[in-house]
């Protein structure tokens, strides 16, 4: 097959990020310059996001059997690239004082983003696995990045190894599931598992269900859905803050996009038992995530458990997609994912801004009295937390509103009841942090807050804050797209 230049245009975001890696690697080879590497990375990711945004209105193509470039994939390419760029900006001051080579971190970040772009554009198991492994491999490195620095977090190596082992196990399960799907359908492309052409005599429905469940379990590991969530709090806690942010946002989004596309195309929800499994995982995630978050005192662990619960909320929209005509549940997933990225990036972002690779401020008590010490940071943090809790005026509420709407249309009363209970429990630990920020500021060894020190990070927070507060523009925009 000849590939012309025109065929390459839809792959522009992917090519730009790949180019960014090559350029920055060469630059590092010639002369190590921290600022320059960061600038190249940010510029490359920005360019990739812009090119995807430029392609979005007009492109809908299958590029090679492995990748599909449509509005959906391009939209999430924009989201991943933009998020990666924000994280690069937040990392710059965070890593500035690391007593080790700092430049390679940005290579890993960009390579991970390549993996994420491949994943959001994949409708073929091969590209899914390629993208997933590219993403995961880079993340192992990123999690353990400050391991040689003397003053850094002690747990980063442990976190990395834990993530590596469990991730590899999950990939194994996923691959086994894929093999069984292949045995049934005779192709590695995403395709319906229900109406299999009779030529490829499959193994029967029992095997199909087993295959689907194995694939789902593999994906659930990466999404840290209960009961496959054990690794999440430890890895979140052990990673440097910007990497935690990356794990929580880009890592989750890319995987979820694949899950949604796979479930839509494969019509897997036609099997009642599969719906049952997903519903069970959703309920387990919402309850486990919220209940376990109650007893945590470390900010990263709280947000880790809260992300487990949020992934559970998202599964409700996926289940609803089977029962509802039209695009409302795909819309719900899209909006909720974007909301989730904004509020997670914002919440972790605040912690990143005040922390550095030498000292992280992860205890709730570190934020005591933030309202009076730095009203600006406290306002952003409160906004993000209220959004995670789903309070109106924020984008998190819009996400919940969509999921409620999809759930009501699909008449999923039990799941909605669990969603309400989960959100109710969630209020407690989000408000606990807010309350701590409201207390009088009388602690001795708090962090210093000065906006001048890293103005660009604050600009990122400001941008996310604005997005947080103007949710309906997003909803109207996405509503028009579909």
């Amino acid at each position, binding site marked *: 097959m000849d590939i012309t230049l025109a065929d390459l245009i839809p792959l522009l975001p992917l090519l730009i990020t790949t180019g960014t890696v090559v350029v920055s690697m060469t630059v590092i080879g010639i002369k190590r310059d921290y600022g320059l590497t960061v600038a190249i990375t940010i510029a490359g990711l920005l360019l990739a996001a812009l090119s995807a945004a430029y392609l979005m209105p007009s492109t809908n193509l299958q590029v090679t059997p492995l990748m599909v470039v449509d509005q959906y994939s391009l939209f999430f390419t924009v989201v991943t690239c933009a998020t990666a760029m924000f994280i690069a900006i937040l990392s710059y001051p965070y890593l500035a004082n690391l007593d080790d080579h700092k430049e390679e971190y940005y290579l890993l970040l960009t390579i991970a983003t390549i993996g994420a772009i491949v994943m959001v554009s994949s409708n073929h198991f091969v590209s899914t696995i390629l993208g997933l492994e590219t993403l995961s491999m880079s993340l192992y490195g990123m999690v353990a990045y400050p391991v040689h620095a003397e003053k850094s977090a002690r747990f980063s190596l442990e976190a990395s190894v834990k993530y590596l082992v469990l991730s590899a196990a999950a990939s194994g399960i996923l691959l086994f599931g894929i093999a069984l799907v292949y045995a049934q359908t005779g192709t590695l492309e995403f395709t319906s598992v229900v109406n299999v052409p009779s030529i490829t005599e499959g193994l029967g429905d029992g095997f199909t269900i087993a295959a689907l469940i194995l694939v789902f379990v593999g994906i659930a590991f990466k999404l840290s859905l209960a009961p496959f969530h054990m690794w999440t709090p430890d890895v979140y806690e052990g990673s440097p803050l910007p990497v935690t942010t990356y794990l929580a946002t880009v890592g989750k989004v890319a995987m979820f996009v694949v899950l949604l596309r796979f479930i839509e195309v494969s019509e897997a929800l036609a099997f009642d038992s599969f719906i049952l499994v997903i519903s069970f995982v959703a309920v387990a995630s919402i309850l486990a995530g919220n209940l376990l978050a109650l007893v945590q005192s470390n900010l990263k662990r709280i947000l880790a458990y809260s992300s487990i619960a949020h992934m559970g909320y998202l599964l409700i929209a996926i289940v609803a997609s089977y029962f509802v005509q039209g695009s409302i549940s795909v819309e719900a997933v899209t909006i909720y994912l974007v909301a989730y990225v904004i509020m997670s990036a914002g919440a972790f972002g605040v912690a990143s801004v005040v922390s550095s690779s030498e000292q992280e401020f992860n205890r709730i008590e570190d934020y005591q009295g933030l309202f009076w010490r730095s009203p600006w940071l406290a306002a952003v943090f409160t906004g993000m937390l209220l959004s995670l809790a789903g309070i109106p005026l924020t984008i998190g509420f819009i996400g919940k509103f969509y999921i409620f709407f999809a759930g009501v249309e699909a008449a999923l009363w039990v799941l909605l009841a669990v969603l309400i209970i989960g*959100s109710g429990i969630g209020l407690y630990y989000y*408000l606990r942090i807010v309350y701590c920020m409201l207390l009088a500021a009388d602690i001795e060894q708090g962090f210093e807050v000065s906006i001048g020190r890293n103005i660009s990070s604050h600009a990122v927070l400001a941008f996310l804050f604005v997005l947080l507060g103007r949710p309906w523009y997003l909803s109207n925009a996405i*509503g028009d797209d579909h």
Partner: protein
Amino acid sequence: MILVWLISILFIGGIIAWLSERVNPYYPRLIALITVLLDLVLMLSLLGAELATGGWVAGIDAAWIPRFGISFYLAADGLSVLLLLLTAFLGVIAIGSAWDEIKDRAGFFYFNLLWTLAGVLGVFTALDLFLFFFFWEVMLIPMYFIIAIWGHENKNYAAMKFFIFTQVTGMLMLVSILVLAYFHYIQSGFVSFNYHDLLTVETYGPLEMWIMLGFFIAFTTKLPSVPFHSWLPDAHSQAPTAGSVILAGILLKTGAYGLIRFAVPLFPEASMTFAPFAMTLAAISILYCAKVAFAQVDIKRLIAYTSVSHMGFVTLGVYAWNEQALQGAVMTMLAHGLSAAALFMLAGGLQHRIHTRNMLDMGGFWAKVPRMAVVVLFFSIAALGMPGLGNFIGEFLALLGAFQANVPLTVISAFGLIFASVYSLWVIQKVFHGEFVNSEFDDSHLTDLTHREMVYYAAMMIGLIWMGMYPQSFLTLSQPVLIDLISSAEGIVTSVVRN
């Protein structure tokens, strides 16, 4: 358009009050007072306004989120106007009660106070159910801050409980609203959250009861009624005085308003079926909370429980669903708004002076603070339902109407009036009569009411006497609205029965 102004003046005033703190720490309270007074004056102009079609005094309807057929639809009728006036009036009173008490971070305090008021005004005027829910939640967050920052010793627990109770039940209401909107979508082909559109939806089957319960639980939590009342004593006892005033005087009334405006008219059939249960809950609230109030030693908790007890008459009146009962419910809302706010202010004033709320430490204050004693006596007597004062009119009408609907429950509820006399007079006796004891607290600040305080109490006294002596001026405003609501609900019920 005037409604938008009413709400946005408060929002903007709040921001200005916050910012003005940097210039001078005394500006925020001044700006807050001016803002609310401005609102009050604007509202008075609504009284003279011509009635537009359908009895709506003023309104605005603009597209907001066309994707879901959600519009920015505000309108006020006689009922709303009464409650708007109550809100602004008590807003002024609340600022007065905070005048000397709140010195710490005053700017942020008045910001939260004004934003709560703005949210309440929105609740009383929103006729798009999504917008209603939006305001319902908006008034929550600033109130949380008021309790959590300026509250007393156990403020974290109280604020958290208040927030979780209201938010979780609010989400039940959100689901109900969505189900209703979805029903409308199935029946008419487009999604709408407009109150008038949703009134035409024919809900049926067991689902109607469940949706109705979503609304009912949200509203009776706010009201509150047994068994969802347990947040209220905590919130009240921990909140600063101004917070208690807003909470008891206005926020509780949003629940009652919701029952009258939404819960019953939207689901007339299910409400008729449910009415005996609701009235039973009301009777239990009245008697049980009166009994519990009698057992309290914390004066603010005591008043909080009496609030729950008095609000029982509102539930009783609403679910009797006839004109007298509804008029009684509305009058109780207004009169209780004033009397409870005044009692909380007095309790707060007492706590401010002697730093305790424990009644066991008090006694014989009449000689020390005669003016305060008389004021407390007045409002206690108002609260226990003395003829000639507003509360009597409200509770009497509510019982009169309820008698036509359900005799046994009305008879039982009427005992609440006797209990009210017992606990009210007990408070007077405990705090103001007997030997003066000061071993448990420092009485050096136990001074009588200042002239400024007397002005507030006098204003509320005039209000209560007016309501008691000439209730017609209030009844006239709410009457057409209530008759309208009753007839439209009956129309639906009879048409369903005929089918």
